[in-house]
């Protein structure tokens, strides 16, 4: 019964969303505030409706209603309750509802803001967000219904449908469900999809405002000012989603790395690339009134890549370890993509003449020029990624030959581009808006550059002779020094002018100029992450050996001795939840005992294995050992694979600092004590909200 109710509510929500689209367009054409208001209220109704429907679904999930096909597929009796709840987004059908739910929440939030000065945007923001929401609800309603029951057709095949199709018999209630894929039971995997979806969904908001600006012809930078914080929030979630996904891969996939350049990973990275470029280039428009075309293109591209990436991973077009099972939503998704791409491009072309810039570039070294260079590099990485993902498709269609585009291609192609971005991160913050010369820039930078060079030379003699690593370390040191010196100088100024102590000065400095210093914190965090990425890519070593009890592996400075292997079933509620193979390994460094590691290889009843590494983490790096059980292991002889991943933890440290940096930048700003770097024009259009 509850399933029917949940489905019914979802259907109602779909029509409410359609109504709000129709009413918003009609109200705008008739210039009727009342009808637009009605559209707005309809849109506000969406979130409560979807919440109700989702509540039904969660209830079914938690209470083992295995007659519902989705519940049967993603839960089982042995799963703890919190996992049953998170199974909501563990499968295609449920995750579509989850998407719609998040989307409606964000759309509601944005429609609740004060619209006094932006009345003309309102109907079109409603149109874009409601269409997107309606689309995702529609997919759940018509193609992937999470509430559908299972029926046997005449041939004995199981069909999924809400109501009994003619000529079928109900499937008897299964005793237990299939259960969530064990790989998805990791904490990282529980939070990773919501983060990613939140990022995707919140990028729809700036896109909606951009579309509204194009449609209404109000093409000044108002839409950018309104959505600035939304963009940062979107970026925060997307970044957090990517990081959590990486951590998950590192912890449970057992291949010693965190990023495999898999098409699905790249599909999530691509909107991040354009989003990051957008965050930078909107600053130019805000401060200098330039690049209006470009910002429009970037936000459209970001939205398009969000939708396109979701499509690629869910339609079965790309084959990948992460991809959802093939499903029927492909054609509908394709139609949606076609319509949004074509409409967006047509609108930009139509409004092109009105988007001309207001000021001119003064110098090739001005900050805006360097930001443009930054954009070029981000776009270049995007081109490489996009082409790498899409080319196998072309190859298969043209020559019938399947090909794999793997990590070596991406690493080689994007490595220099990332290095270029790092270099820009070093010099751009010190170049002035409008005008910079080589001399002024040189004067500001040479000390940091020399210091970074000294560090690099020291590293050359003490740590590594690898050219790529040294280049990387030079850039990292350079950017860190430049950025930290900026912090230092500004804090010093504050200490002197306000007679504050160092910490207070730093605190108020950052607090009063959140965007600038939040940005710098993000740059610092990027450099920390770069240390980790460089470490694992350049210095990773590994070995695989089969050990008898008491034998050891020596790798780098470490010795790993195989003590014991225990094999036992793990019981939950009297049922075998998984079969555990757990090895015990003592780790020592240069003969000094460090710790005992327990690499595991768990096999779930459905045969799905999970490789959990034994990890010894320090700032110097990780010792990552896996039980290579697929080669067969016993208490007497077990194969182990050991990775030494130098410096990898800087990646995670950097990630935390990174999120902290975005929070600083996105936190609502109060009145500024020092004049913030807004141009006069910005003041005329008044402060941003």
């Amino acid at each position, binding site marked *: 019964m509850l399933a029917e109710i949940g489905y019914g509510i979802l259907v109602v929500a779909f029509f409410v969303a359609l109504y709000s689209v129709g009413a918003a367009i009609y109200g705008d054409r008739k210039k009727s505030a009342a009808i637009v208001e009605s559209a707005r209220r309809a849109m506000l109704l969406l979130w409560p409706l979807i919440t109700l429907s989702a509540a039904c679904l969660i209830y079914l999930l938690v209470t083992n209603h295995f007659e519902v096909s989705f519940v049967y597929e993603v839960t089982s009796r042995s799963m703890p309750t919190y996992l049953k709840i998170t199974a909501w987004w563990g499968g295609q059908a449920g995750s579509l509802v989850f998407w719609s739910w998040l989307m409606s929440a964000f759309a509601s939030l944005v429609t609740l803001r004060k619209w006094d000065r932006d009345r003309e945007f309102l109907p079109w923001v409603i149109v874009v967000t409601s269409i997107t929401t309606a689309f995702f609800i529609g997919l759940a309603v018509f193609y992937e219904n999470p509430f559908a029951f299972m029926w046997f057709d005449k041939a004995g095949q199981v069909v999924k449908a809400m109501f009994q199709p003619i000529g079928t018999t109900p499937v008897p209630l299964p005793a237990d469900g299939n259960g969530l894929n064990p790989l998805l039971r990791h904490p990282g995997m529980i939070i990773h999809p919501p983060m990613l979806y939140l990022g995707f969904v919140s990028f729809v908001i700036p896109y909606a405002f951009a579309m509204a600006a194009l449609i209404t012809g109000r093409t000044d930078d108002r839409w950018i000012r309104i959505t600035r914080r939304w963009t940062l929030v979107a970026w925060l979630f997307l970044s957090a989603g990517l990081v959590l996904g990486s951590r998950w891969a590192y912890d449970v996939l057992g291949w010693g790395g965190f990023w495999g350049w898999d098409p699905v990973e790249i599909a999530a990275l691509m909107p991040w690339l354009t989003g990051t470029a957008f965050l930078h280039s909107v600053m130019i428009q805000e401060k200098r009134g330039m690049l209006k075309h470009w910002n429009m293109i970037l936000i459209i591209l970001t939205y398009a890549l969000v939708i396109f990436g979701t499509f690629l991973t869910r339609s079965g077009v790309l084959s990948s370890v992460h991809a959802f099972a093939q499903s029927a939503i492909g054609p509908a998704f394709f139609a949606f993509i076609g319509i949004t791409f074509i409409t967006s491009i047509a609108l930009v072309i139509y409004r092109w003449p009105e988007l001309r810039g207001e000021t001119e*570039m003064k110098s090739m070294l001005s900050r805006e020029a360097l930001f443009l260079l930054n954009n070029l590099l981000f776009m270049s990485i995007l081109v490489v990624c996009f082409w790498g993902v899409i080319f196998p498709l072309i190859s298969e269609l043209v020559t019938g030959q399947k090909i794999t585009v793997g990590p070596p291609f991406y690493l080689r192609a994007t490595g220099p581009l990332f290095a270029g971005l790092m270099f820009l991160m070093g010099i751009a913050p010190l170049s002035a808006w409008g005008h910079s010369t080589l001399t002024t820039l040189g004067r500001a930078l040479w000390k940091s550059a020399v210091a970074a060079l000294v560090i690099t030379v020291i590293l050359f003699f003490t740590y590594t002779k690898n050219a790529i690593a040294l280049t990387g370390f030079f850039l990292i040191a350079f950017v860190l020094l430049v950025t930290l010196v900026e912090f230092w100088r500004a804090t010093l100024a504050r200490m002197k002018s306000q007679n504050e102590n160092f910490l207070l000065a730093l605190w108020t400095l950052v607090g009063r100029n959140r965007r600038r210093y939040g940005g710098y914190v993000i740059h610092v965090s990027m450099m920390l992450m770069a240390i980790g990425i460089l470490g694992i890519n350049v210095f990773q070593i590994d070995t695989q050996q089969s050990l008898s009890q008491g034998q050891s592996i020596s790798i780098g400075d470490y010795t790993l001795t195989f003590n014991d292997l225990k094999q036992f079933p793990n019981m939950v509620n009297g049922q075998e939840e998984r079969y555990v193979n757990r090895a015990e390994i003592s780790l020592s460094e240069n003969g000094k005992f460090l710790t005992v590691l327990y690499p595991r290889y768990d096999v779930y009843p459905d045969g799905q294995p999970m490789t959990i590494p034994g990890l010894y983490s320090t700032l110097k790096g990780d010792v990552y050992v896996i039980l290579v059980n697929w080669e067969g292991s016993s208490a007497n002889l077990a194969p182990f694979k050991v990775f030494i991943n130098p410096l990898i933890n800087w990646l995670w440290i950097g990630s935390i600092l990174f999120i902290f940096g975005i929070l600083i930048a996105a936190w609502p700003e109060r009145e500024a004590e020092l004049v913030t770097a807004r141009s006069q024009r910005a003041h005329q259009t008044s402060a941003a909200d």
Partner: protein
Amino acid sequence: MEFKLSNKNLRITFFVLLAIALAFFIASQIYRPALAQNPTPTDDEVNRIAHQLYCPVCENTPLDVCPTEACRQWRDLIRQQLSQGWTEDQIKQYFIDQYGVRVVGEPPATGLNWLIYVLPPLIILAGAFILFRALRAWTKSSKASAATGSEIEAPKDEYVARLEEELKKRK
């Protein structure tokens, strides 16, 4: 017919023997790896090659860390080939011949596949060119307008200016 050890026959025999010896020598030079049996390749030697291969059963997962039975067989085959003295290139080529170019992470730059290496740099260069031209056009036109008298004060980064001022003041 009786074989007479005549002068002529001797000479022929000598040359034939020489040719055979030479052939053996050359063959042993070419196939030296084949003769130098490597009795038990280590896991690391196997993995070094396996790491560069992708089995079609588990797409996009390198062979050295793929837990499926199919991949285990592939690794066994690599081990066998190594113990027979095959070189890395020979092994990779064998897998390409057997299972198609999809087994390597970087498609060989032949036929249509060279597009994958050529197109991104071309697009990036085109992008760089467009950016450079736009920048030059902008700076030029601003210089031109400066020359005609409508001098525009370089907009100072007010925040930085203020910061510098304060730093100077308090020194």
